[in-house]
């Protein structure tokens, strides 16, 4: 397939892997930030091609994984209310909250619908003026523009039956939180290409300088990831600390101006809790006061309630790159995709789920 096959070429992959091996003289820990990259690494077996000194550490960039339990609980609380149609991206449905997940709510009779875009949810709201349509607005900077667009459009049309349950998170503050942690072992980053497509990469220069880490804007195909690793290792070996952008076919320095303008108009930066990690200051997006009537938490009068994670789940450590999924004692035994203890075992972008699905049998055998 055009624009994809050329980035999955086996011979080119081997060549890049050989180039990485040539420049590597010491062990390095490199974190790929985005769950989509983690998925590709495990699905294609990219790490198998790397020299043993290079460890790819899986990052927090899985929107499903970091959505806090209390938001899932709120979703499960709102969905069965009379007159509500609850719309969500598919992979949020299986994430366990305190009282089950959205799929179970659906099985109990709630009107839960999978949509592919907030604009689809908006269309559902238009078609059902007597119902309250709630869209579960999760995700990083990548999904924010479409959510902002949906809200702006709903306001223009004067719609009274459309709200967002917002759980937006931002990548750069999470990278800073990881680097500032005493247990940090990340020495270089592959930044999330799609996030940079929207936001650009100007905000990474201060992080690279402050924490002395190379940051390479990286795409999602095998050759993109191998190239990202190559450039990152070269910087580390040469003692350079720069922000590089080999993913120029998608990312410009300033990002997508119109998308950034839309986000800034509808959303403001707020503190946000990350599942398994805790609260990170200035790490999320919430609706601006001018759009408060589209806030589902306000519409349905939900107070914040603190929730404890299941004690056995180590997803926080996995999301910060401290622990590999199969190093968790519950991995593959008490925690499986059928009975997940944490969200990292649910989403296709979750590191635990990726390990279980693509490494399953040998990894499970080794850990038992």
């Amino acid at each position: 397939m055009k624009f994809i096959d050329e980035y999955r070429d086996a011979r080119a992959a081997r060549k890049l892997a050989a180039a990485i091996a040539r420049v590597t003289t010491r062990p390095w820990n490199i974190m790929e930030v985005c769950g989509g990259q983690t998925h590709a690494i495990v699905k294609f077996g990219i790490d198998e091609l790397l020299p043993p000194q290079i460890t790819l550490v899986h990052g927090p960039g899985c929107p499903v994984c970091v959505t806090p339990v209390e938001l899932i609980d709120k979703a499960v609380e709102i969905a069965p209310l009379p007159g509500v149609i609850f719309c969500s991206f598919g992979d949020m449905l299986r994430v366990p909250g305190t009282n089950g997940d959205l799929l179970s709510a659906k099985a109990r009779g709630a009107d839960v619908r999978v949509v592919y875009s907030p604009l689809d949810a908006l269309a559902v709201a238009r078609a059902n003026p007597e119902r309250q349509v709630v869209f579960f607005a999760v995700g990083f900077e990548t999904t924010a523009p479409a959510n902002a667009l949906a809200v702006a459009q709903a306001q223009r049309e004067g719609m009274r039956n459309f709200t967002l349950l917002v759980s937006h998170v931002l990548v750069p503050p999470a990278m800073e939180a990881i680097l500032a942690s005493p247990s940090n072992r990340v020495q270089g980053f592959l930044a999330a290409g799609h996030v940079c497509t929207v936001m650009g990469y100007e905000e990474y220069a201060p992080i690279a300088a402050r924490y002395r880490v190379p940051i390479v804007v990286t795409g999602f195909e095998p050759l993109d990831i191998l190239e990202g690793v190559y450039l990152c290792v070269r910087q580390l070996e040469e003692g350079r600390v720069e922000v590089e952008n080999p993913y120029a076919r998608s990312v410009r320095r300033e990002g997508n101006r119109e998308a950034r303008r839309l986000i800034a108009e509808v959303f403001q930066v707020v503190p946000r809790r990350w599942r398994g990690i805790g609260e990170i200051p200035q790490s999320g997006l919430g609706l601006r006061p001018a759009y408060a009537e589209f806030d589902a938490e306000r519409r349905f009068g939900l107070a914040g309630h603190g929730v404890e994670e299941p004690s056995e789940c180590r997803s926080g450590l996995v999301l910060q790159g401290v622990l590999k999924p199969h190093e968790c004692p519950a991995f593959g035994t008490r925690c499986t995709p059928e009975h997940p203890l944490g969200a990292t075992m649910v989403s296709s972008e979750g590191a635990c789920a990726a390990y279980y699905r693509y490494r399953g049998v040998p990894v499970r055998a080794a850990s038992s």
Partner: protein
Amino acid sequence: MTLRDGHAAMPEPEDFVLSCPIPIREYPQVLLAHGGGGKLMHALIEKMFLAAFENPLLATRHDGAVVDLNGGRIALTTDSYVVRPLFFPGGNIGTLAVNGTVNDLAMCGARPLFLTAGFILEEGLPMETLWRVVRSMQEAAAAAGVQIVTGDTKVVDKGKGDGLFVNTAGLGVVPPGRVIAPDRVRPGDAVLLSGDVGRHGMAIMAVREGLTFESEIDSDCAPLVEPVMALLDAGVEVHCLRDLTRGGLASGVIEIAQAAGVHVALDERAIPVRQDVRGACEVLGLDPLYVANEGRFVAFVAPADAERALQLLRGHPLGAGASLIGRVAESHPHGLVTMTTEIGATRVVDMLSGEQLPRIC
């Protein structure tokens, strides 16, 4: 009264809790995933249905049962069809109901002969819709060489059905000495795939979700009797066959690997997926190897016959895109499927728990 109150107020029948082999505390209700062709569905079948109906024929866990009867051998199977939308590019619920059951018989090595048809109709279903479905069934039955010889009709209240559900059961004959089953699979067997995968599932999803792509993706729904008979009648040593419906190619091969106790090594690069299907899967974050088909099968054949089998398949329109996608590497206690990826690395192919869910970004 909220739903949760209603749920709590319902007394749990205690003896059922004690005797039910499914840990119902974990799944007090049936979820959609229990019908998704993945691990939850297999657990349900294994722990509830197999445990309750236990017998040697059921235990073979094939697409149908092959029964010895007065010296002859017949194959028997049944399937229910609950597709939404009822009509989709490349077929409808009627063509599915005939071809699906015909194919299950063919996978037992049987020549399908007779079908039954049960209709559950929802009050208010346009008669015109029913007629179109029935006409399609008539045509599909004629094409597959089967007769629909008995049936049943029920009507349920409006809102209690999704327009139209169809159940078909099928009966076919198996020639003496022909045994097609997972336990005949041997190390060295070649794994042949009859054509490109993922089309039916993506055709349905495109219509259901209103997704539009550059070209319309049509279902691969078709009767597989002829390509299967082409192999068997030519004397190819076929060990096992499986049509790749729910759960797709990956689940079908994993089921056989587990039932046969073997390690199957696949090559991702040899698996044909049409460009439009790949594109749609990329957009939605789905893996085409887990997407449903209705006109594709895998054949495990003896190594010496692999090349001839491939040519025989390719000689038939429904097998024109056939390819050799892997081999049975060795015996393996629990069954294992691995795959050489597009970039030449190796990974495990595992069964999903339920249906694939489209990703966020």
